[in-house]
């Protein structure tokens, strides 16, 4: 119930949903490299506009996209605070001094820069997972990893395992919640400050969770067998990956955006 929707597919019929998953995966990889290439805040503005635009045309509620940031919020706050407090620059004079700490304008700039980068690093890929079904995602990955089949790497099996893992995340999260509640009702204490005590306190949750996961795995294996699963051999697909006109437009749009970042970075001037 709580965060079961986090990172999960959001059904809709938008253009972004229709783009070929292979292209989307490649775009996300390009996007990540690009976010590292961004030279200044103008660059982040361009990236943010891109993310916002993609979100709007994907018809996914902005709230769902923003939600993906929640897990790394603490990381962002933590790194920002550390950067601001411990940044030292022997060559220049601190802009403010408070107690034992020296503050520099530059450190605040750096912290904000890093925070923006982290945020955008998470936001972009979350649009991928929100608009692509796990099957599309894994089909796309299977295609992209196909060359590995030459060296006898079991691409298909790996991809099936991934899709099953994605499918079971919400189920296991729900189960974890249930077990935690059951143990809390027996006065279990999960709020200990001591990290070892905390780890030990999790045993009454982890053991039942393992036991039930194995049970589920057994039953799933039976279900796979009953549905005639026999590896990749002789398998067909209901949905064929097809590169269409929408994909071409998506790719073009992305390239324009990609170039604009490069222009900012290398100050290419055409006019």
């Amino acid at each position, binding site marked *: *119930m*709580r965060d*079961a*929707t986090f990172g*999960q*597919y959001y*059904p809709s019929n938008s253009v972004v949903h229709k783009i070929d998953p292979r292209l989307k995966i490649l775009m996300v990889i390009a996007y990540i490299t690009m976010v590292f290439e961004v030279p200044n805040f103008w660059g982040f503005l361009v990236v943010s506009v891109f993310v916002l635009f993609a979100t709007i045309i994907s018809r996914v*509620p902005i*709230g*769902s996209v923003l*939600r993906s940031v929640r897990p790394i919020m603490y990381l962002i706050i933590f790194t920002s605070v550390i950067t601001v407090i411990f940044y030292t620059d022997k060559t220049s004079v601190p802009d403010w001094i408070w107690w034992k700490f020296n503050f520099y304008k530059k450190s605040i700039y750096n912290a904000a820069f890093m925070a923006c980068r982290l945020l955008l690093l998470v936001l972009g890929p979350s649009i991928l997972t929100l608009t692509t*079904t*796990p*099957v599309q995602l894994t089909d796309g990955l299977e295609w992209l990893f196909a060359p590995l089949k030459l060296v006898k790497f079991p691409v298909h099996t790996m991809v099936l395992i991934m*899709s*099953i893992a*994605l*499918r079971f995340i*919400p*189920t296991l999260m729900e*189960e974890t919640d*249930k*077990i935690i*509640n*059951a*143990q*809390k*009702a*027996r*006065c*279990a*204490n999960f709020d200990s400050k001591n990290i070892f005590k905390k780890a030990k306190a999790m*045993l*009454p*949750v982890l*053991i*039942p969770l393992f*036991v*039930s996961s194995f049970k*589920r795995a057994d*039953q*799933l294996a*039976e*279900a*796979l*067998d*009953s*549905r*005639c*699963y*026999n590896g990749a051999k*002789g*398998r*067909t*697909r*209901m*949905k*064929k990956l097809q590169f269409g006109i929408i994909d071409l437009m998506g790719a073009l749009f992305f390239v324009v955006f990609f170039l604009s970042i490069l222009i900012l970075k290398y100050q290419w001037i055409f006019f």
Partner: protein
Amino acid sequence: MIELKNVSFTYQYSDDWVLNDLSIKIEEGSFVALCGRNGSGKSTIARLLNGLLLPDKGSVMVDNMNTLDRTKLFSIRKTVGLVFQNPDNQTVATIVEDDVAFGPENIGVPREEIRKRVDWALEVVGMSEYKKSTHTRLSGGQKQRVAIASILALKPRVLVLDESTSMLDPKGRMEVLQVLKDINIQQHITVIMITHFMEEAQIADRIVVLEKGRLFLDGGVELFEQREKLMQAGLSLPAFAEIAALLNIKNVKTEARLVEELVNLTKSSAKDCTGQKNKLGIQTKTDDSHSNVAIHVGNLSFTYSKKTSFAKLALDNVSLQVNEGDFLGIVGHTGSGKTTMIGHINALIKLQSGELRVLDIDLNKKFKYNDLRSKVGMVFQYPEYQLFDETVQKDIAFGPRNLKLEQQEIDERVRQAIKMVGLSFDEIAEKSPFELSGGQKKRVALAGVIAMRPKIIVLDEPTAGLDPCGKKEILDLIFKIKEHCNTVIMISHNMDEVAKYCNKVALFSQGKLLQFCTPHELFVQQQLLVDLSLDIPAATRITNKLNEKGLNLPHDTVQLDELIDRLALFLR
């Protein structure tokens, strides 16, 4: 279509024959209910039918193919489709249509044909509009219908369901049964339904009862007249058959027939029963103004994911009061707020608005979680899933240990708790909880809660998924525990249980408390329950049918015993 010839089967780790020289023939196009208590061998049969298991002796023939012939394995699995108990554990893909397509993809069906099959299969189970939906957004009944569609897409000629309705609420169960009936009649697919609910078995053309791995009874609905034998096999009768058997009315095969028969019988003796109502008043309202308040709930409201776009009002201004000694039943749909309500009592859910007092603890003020949780014992659905420690003794001691009690006190409590749930300390204390049988695990889990010596026990569907014997055992146990810990609150979908055990009922719908009264007062409001598509106790349903036909029974009959006593008086 299917033939089991002298089949015997044993699991590797055991010496007992799960199936013992069993022979059954099943005709194409029939609808067979395969019944029996837990451990009677019925689930093993399901797995033998599609070659997941192979017989040790004898043979299993599917459409003239022997399951021992491994070259035919995929043909056999295409012919016999198997749907399992837990809808969550048989779904491979997140998106409904992708999951349904998985089977046909495996057997290499061409692309266009897969599309057609998926659309057809989802149409048959009535889930077409959900084809793009994600698995987690579906209800239990819907998930199970998708699981059936996933098998149908393989175009099987036989559909086997291994207790596929046992984890569903009554609404989901009805949905699935309706789908099965349609599949059997319209698609001409043979259906073999494994179940321990005789109420469900009624819809089959043929009922096969197993006991200890052997064929015990085999026939049509006339089997319901063999009350003694069915009881011996650990099964219960549908309500109408129970009435017929106890009133000694012969040749009653359906509920409608029973009603007719009773109307005919009573015409001759035109007695009026209304005058006897008070004499028969089995459950008179108890005056509870003197007992102490155990739980006070005032204007309680709760919203999940507050302040987000996912906000969902789960409890809406609920007020109620439970007295010491009450046995409160909480009824309502899945998602009506029942679980949120009981979560509050144990502070598993933090109070948002409203008043809540549990015994002497005011949850609006500061309090210690352990004080509250040691006084309120919670038993969740499938409590056996909470077991974790090396030995039964240690596991049961988990609660008391968390309360930081003296070792001697802990031992004492563990001993007493084990005794109370009807197990033997010497036999079980040093065993691992994971090597126990299902029923024993449940008892050990219950003991783990009892060892805290709670004053109030809260149970979330304690009988879900159990066969009739298991149900009765657990309910009797709960009744026994009630002698020690006075106040019991129980969430249940089974109205017959509520009618039988509870003295008060709270009916929830969409987060609101619609009714808070005695079972008698609730169940006379037939229309309300029908509108909410909740079950009505069998006794009330039959009483209403009889009264429609001109009988004059007191309409507040909620328990079967009550109805039988009243009818017996009528007929005398």
